[in-house]
């Protein structure tokens, strides 16, 4: 029995590059076209917030759970956000069970950074008793199908799940904290969206498919917030982007992010 290798046929690479020369892609898109996005929220009953995102054939599920815990000693009056992404074998024969690998960790780190630096959740409003009890927000991401650009799909899923998540109300009686059945939306302050570009040869495409990911030299992910500010940036792969390219992509990504933000569910707290 053998393992499937990360090898793209040289012929396919040639085809992808020859098509890009003409400004086309294998699936019929233009270089700066994002695939169709479909977001379904509230798919898991037992979670406080959840979403399934379909990005072409890529599919990701996100669940938000809340837990009460003591705050971190260095931030006594703020809740915490913990993002965890797992690429399970269900998604692709390339993924295996076991401890998270580099790809899993990169996804969870980039999603975490985008949500955190855009201040999507108002963590300070998650405090129950200052210095003693706060809400921890756990975002769990699972890839269900891998056809490239898991990062943007995970970001969309995590944000959609958070925007529609509800936390239980609490009542404080002396030393005792009672969790009520009544629920309220979690405090939302912003939105985050990520756009991934892949550089194949001298050409740049947005939202790479699995085959394009195998053929690419470098990858650049830019996260934007509601006002179009760049809140996070991540570069991967062994190739490079010139500084002019990065500035240009920053502008192109902004246009695409505006379209994507309109597809996100409306936050419950608004």
């Amino acid at each position, binding site marked *: 029995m053998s393992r499937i290798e990360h090898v793209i*046929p040289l*012929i396919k690479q040639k085809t992808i590059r020859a098509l890009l020369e003409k400004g086309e892609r294998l699936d019929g898109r233009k270089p700066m076209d994002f695939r169709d996005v479909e977001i379904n929220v509230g798919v898991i009953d037992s979670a406080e917030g959840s979403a399934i995102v379909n990005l072409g054939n890529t599919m990701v599920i996100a669940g938000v759970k809340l837990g009460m815990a003591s705050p971190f000693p260095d931030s006594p009056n703020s809740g915490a956000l913990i993002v965890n992404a797992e690429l399970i074998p269900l998604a692709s024969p390339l993924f295996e069970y076991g401890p998270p690998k580099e790809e899993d960790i990169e996804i969870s780190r980039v999603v975490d950074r985008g949500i955190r630096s855009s201040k999507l959740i108002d963590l300070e409003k998650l405090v129950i008793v200052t210095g003693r009890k706060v809400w921890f927000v756990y975002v769990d991401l699972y890839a269900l199908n891998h056809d490239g650009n898991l990062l943007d799909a995970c970001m969309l899923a995590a944000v959609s799940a958070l925007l529609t998540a509800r936390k239980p109300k609490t009542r404080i009686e002396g030393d005792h904290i009672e969790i009520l059945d009544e629920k309220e939306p979690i405090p939302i302050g912003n939105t985050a969206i990520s756009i991934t570009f892949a550089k194949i040869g001298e050409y740049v495409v947005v939202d790479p498919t699995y085959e394009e990911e195998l053929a690419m030299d470098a990858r650049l992910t830019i996260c934007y917030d509601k006002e179009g500010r760049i809140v996070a940036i991540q570069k991967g792969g062994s190739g490079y982007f010139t500084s002019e390219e990065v500035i240009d992509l920053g502008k192109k990504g902004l246009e695409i992010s505006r379209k994507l933000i309109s597809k996100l569910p409306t936050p419950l707290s608004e």
Partner: protein
Amino acid sequence: MIKVKREKIKIVLPGEVVKVGDIKTTTEVIKLDDKLVSTLIGIPKMKRRRGERVLSVLPLKTPYIPKEGDIVIGKIVDIGVTNWLVDINSPWKAILPISEVLSKPVNVSKIELKDYLNIGDLIVARVIAFDLTRDPLLTIKESRLGKATRGLFLELSSWDWLLLKSKEKTLLRGVKKKANCNIVLGANYRVLMIGKGLEEELKALEIVRETLGRRST
């Protein structure tokens, strides 16, 4: 059993009793007492093998199981000392020895195997030996076999591929006539379209998509 109304196709699920009785079965159907139980999702089918009735289940989705004599499209994934390792879209990795590539005897210490076939190269090959216990053996020492230097490469699901295969003759003729392309249907659910240029190959791809009836590739 789920019955698809219009097509009148029966689909069985894993663990479902396909038939009761003493009939010979293929490996995907197991016998529990006198019940014949499917181990996969598929369509039950009676075959005739050496004059005997054999019950089999045609799986809806399957990896390629090598068979001697099949023409497959392989991808070189590793280079050994005297052989190449080829991914043939199957649980087994195929072996392509030097003797099945070059016609003259060579000194392995003096040549570089990657000068002939490198990682990522596609080959059209024939399975010459396979018995489930050892890795399949390939050859490219025949006419119409060998390294593909250009072309458009497709990987299909087993079901889509079977659909193409059932219309092979019209497909080959259509692609030759309308797109001036050759098309290779590898038994391992891979398709290679070879034409003079990208334009022709894209036209061929369009014909394949039409044949499949939807945008699945």
